[in-house]
């Protein structure tokens, strides 16, 4: 599919006189005349043609563009939701066209699969051809050397046999593959070829692309990923139930997940004076299986925890206020509520829900008086309270502003609910309302250790905060293939782009009585401006290689040294 082409399409300038048309198989001719084969063959020829491949490459490049214009589900589900909110009429139509799943869309897949089919259709014959070329000896010398782009001639006192050995040794010393033939008239010819690596590299590059496709497929079938938030001190184990979000590959089962557990022992974030992050360090301990020894690991952004069958990555972090609620019956509940950061200074937002609060201890039925606290946390409070924007991401002057809601949190409905916000429907229906009826009455500012008594006598205490981190756990069995494929791809690419195929022939004929005449001709089969120079050096080397011959150079003359095809 790249580089060279079958001999039939080589332009006159590059046509190699030594290439003979391949013998066609008889079965092929018979197959070609079978009904229905014609159109299929025509389609196949169209698909595997270079022009089609070029068009497909361009289409692939263009088809990838929408993925950077529209938000993608595989990158950020939230952005897609935002897009739906902002463009309520266009979004469903775009969604039908897979605008939010471009890289998993049928049309994107169609383009790259067609491209790969075209690639295989082109590679297989080329591989066969190349293997044949490697096995085959360099082709016999052409009858006339002056037709070749480069030719030279010299005389020597040696007999043809010795002269041929000298030329061959010269070629061999430059790592040319040579074959010596004798012609009916007694002349000795040497055919030499070099640069097989170019096509080898070309094939390696393109087969490496196939390996990459397999690597991607392997990863998406047999891989899995999961995310969760972990508060300092907590432990989680690698089961789907313990993740906030997870995705299994098509050929992966929940039971395939390796049974490791990780405990977050502590987390430290460091910042520069301007609030820019300087370092995140999480100390974790883990067991690879229930009966394995406990090991420690320092988890950092560029230092994932790699256990057997999965990698654990540190993604983000934030604060989780710890709140104690003592309800009107004296029951206490403590919760650690992770708040999500709103900005780089870690102004954070979140809720705490107390679903079992204010239930009469005698079991009597009463209006539900569950408590929901919505809050904004600033690790370093802005003196201008109207701003509600933290000044620094570390807890230099932490302040928690809470708004208290009471009523039915709506958890009993069975519908899934976010742990980061109160149920909008319940608020809308008035089943969950601000304590005291107004935002002013229901809002309170707390510093760590402070408590707040609600109108019904219950109290909310802000005990302090814990840090949390978000982690991503991933397993991609295609990675090794991808890495190997990528290395092979690069090696093949460089070999292919720097390699040059070229051929040199020599014909040694006896000179009247003593000595012999050595004619050398050569051509570069790929664009290679330096071949003239290489050829000249080679021709010179062939005269005096090994110091065996000493015929003066005066008789030497270049023959028809034109720069055709260069």
């Amino acid at each position, binding site marked *: 599919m790249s580089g060279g*082409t079958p001999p039939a399409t080589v332009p006159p300038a590059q046509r190699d006189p030594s290439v003979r048309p391949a013998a066609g198989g008889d079965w092929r001719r018979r197959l070609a005349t079978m009904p229905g084969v014609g159109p299929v063959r025509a389609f196949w020829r169209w698909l595997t043609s270079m022009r089609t491949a*070029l068009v497909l490459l361009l289409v692939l490049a263009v088809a990838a563009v929408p993925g950077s214009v529209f938000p993608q589900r595989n990158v950020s589900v939230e952005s897609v939701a935002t897009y739906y909110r902002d463009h309520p009429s266009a979004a469903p139509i775009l969604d039908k066209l897979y605008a939010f799943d471009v890289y998993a869309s049928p049309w994107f897949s169609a383009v790259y699969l067609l491209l790969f089919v075209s690639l295989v259709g082109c590679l297989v014959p080329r591989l066969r051809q190349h293997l044949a070329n490697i096995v085959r000896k360099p082709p016999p010398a052409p009858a006339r050397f002056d037709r070749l782009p480069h030719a030279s001639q010299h005389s020597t006192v040696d007999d043809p046999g010795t002269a041929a050995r000298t030329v061959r040794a010269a070629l061999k010393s430059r790592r040319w593959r040579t074959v010596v033939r004798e012609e009916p008239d007694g002349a000795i010819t040497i055919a030499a070829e070099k640069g097989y690596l170019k096509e080898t590299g070309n094939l390696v590059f393109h087969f490496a692309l196939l390996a990459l496709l397999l690597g991607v497929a392997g990863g998406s079938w047999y891989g899995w990923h999961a995310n969760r938030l972990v508060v300092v001190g907590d432990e989680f184990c690698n089961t789907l139930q313990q993740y906030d979000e997870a995705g299994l590959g098509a050929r992966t089962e929940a039971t395939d997940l390796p049974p490791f557990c990780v405990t977050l022992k502590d987390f430290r974030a460091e910042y520069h004076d301007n609030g820019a992050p300087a370092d995140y360090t999480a100390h974790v301990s883990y067991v690879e299986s229930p009966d394995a020894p406990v090991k420690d690991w320092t988890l950092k952004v560029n230092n994932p925890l790699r256990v057997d069958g999965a*990698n654990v990555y540190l993604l983000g972090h934030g604060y989780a206020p710890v709140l104690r609620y003592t309800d009107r019956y004296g029951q206490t509940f403590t919760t650690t509520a992770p708040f999500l950061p709103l900005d780089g200074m870690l102004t954070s937002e979140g809720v705490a829900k107390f679903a079992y609060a204010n239930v009469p201890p005698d079991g009597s039925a009463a209006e539900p008086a569950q408590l929901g606290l919505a809050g904004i946390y600033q690790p370093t409070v802005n003196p201008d309270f109207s701003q509600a924007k933290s000044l620094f991401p570390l807890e230099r002057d932490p302040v928690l502003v809470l708004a208290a809601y009471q009523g039915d949190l709506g958890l009993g409905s069975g519908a899934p609910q976010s742990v980061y916000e109160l149920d909008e429907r319940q608020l809308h229906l008035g089943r969950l309302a601000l304590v005291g009826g107004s935002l002013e009455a229901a809002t309170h500012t707390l510093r760590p250790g402070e408590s707040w008594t609600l109108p019904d006598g219950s109290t909310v205490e802000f005990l302090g905060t814990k840090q949390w981190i978000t982690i991503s756990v991933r397993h991609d069995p295609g990675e090794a293939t*991808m890495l190997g494929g990528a290395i092979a*791809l690069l090696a093949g690419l460089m070999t292919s*782009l720097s390699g040059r195929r070229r051929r040199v022939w020599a014909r040694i004929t006896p000179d009247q009585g003593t000595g012999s005449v050595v004619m050398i001709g050569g051509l570069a089969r790929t664009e290679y401006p330096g071949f003239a120079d290489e050829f000249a050096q080679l021709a010179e080397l062939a005269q005096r290689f090994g110091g065996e011959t000493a015929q003066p150079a005066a008789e030497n003359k270049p023959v028809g*040294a034109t720069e055709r095809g260069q």
Partner: protein
Amino acid sequence: MAHTSDVLLTVTLLVYLAAFLGYLVEFAFGTRGAVARVAARPERELVSVGAEAAASTAWDLPDTAPAAPASPVVDPRAEKAGSRSGVAGIVGAGLTVVGLGLHIAVLVTRGLAAGHVPWSNMYEFVVALTAVFTIGWLVLLAVRPAMRPLGIFITAALVVLLGFAGLVLTAEAGPLTPPLQSSWLKIHVSAAAIASGLLLLGFVPAALYLVRSAYEAGRFRPGLVTDLADRLPSADRLERLTFRLHTFAFPIWTLAIICGAIWAESAWGRYWGWDPKETWSFISWVAYAAYLHARATPSVKRTVATWFSVAAGITMVINLYVINFVAVGMHSYAGVE
């Protein structure tokens, strides 16, 4: 030190501007100056002396033919010495060398000020890639002096890119955020800068080839464009230069993407995630691959193939300038408010 770096950038810009004027004088007043004449001379004329001599003319690439100083055929330096506009061109080239020295000093002082490699945000990245661009140009100029008429476009691009970097992209030199604290920053980003600089350099002869080949085909009415095209090296030379630059830079671009994927795996947990920057580097890669395939296909016209490379170059520019500002992704390193 950061301030020194900023001052140096201004000086660098002014020197490049002066170099631009030097090339411009040569271009404008040297109505087909010596350099252009040498460039336009048909190859056959040189070749007739013999293959050996042809191979040693000065503008063959270094890996193919080390320039022989005693070449009997052409010594462009001797020819152009007579022309005054040629002097302006040489001054332009000399000023480019001075500019590059200052340019590298900008990077070094910036690196010292920040305490890490000077390509951690968009400003630094553009300064680094333009340095590669200039180095590439000077190497090219040393190997193929006949390409000097391109200097005017090269330095114009330099002034625009660096000026935009200094005025718009400028960001405080600062320490690295945790995701950037990795050895891969040195490898991935430098490979990206080198490849981008060289691919951008390849864009210049590619675009000029399209102009020149249309001119050689007689497709322009006499006017400014023909005057301009007339002073350019021959279409054939521009086309081959375009190809050489791209074949050199494309593997580096591939390496940059691969290193990025390895880094992404250890920092973000996946080697490829269709982040906008990743997507556009993929688009560019595919577009450049299409160019190389088109170039290797005899049935595709060279002008068509070169359009592929121009299109690919445009995707690089989009990736560098548009994506950093418009798309929000994990590569949001621009640091531009």
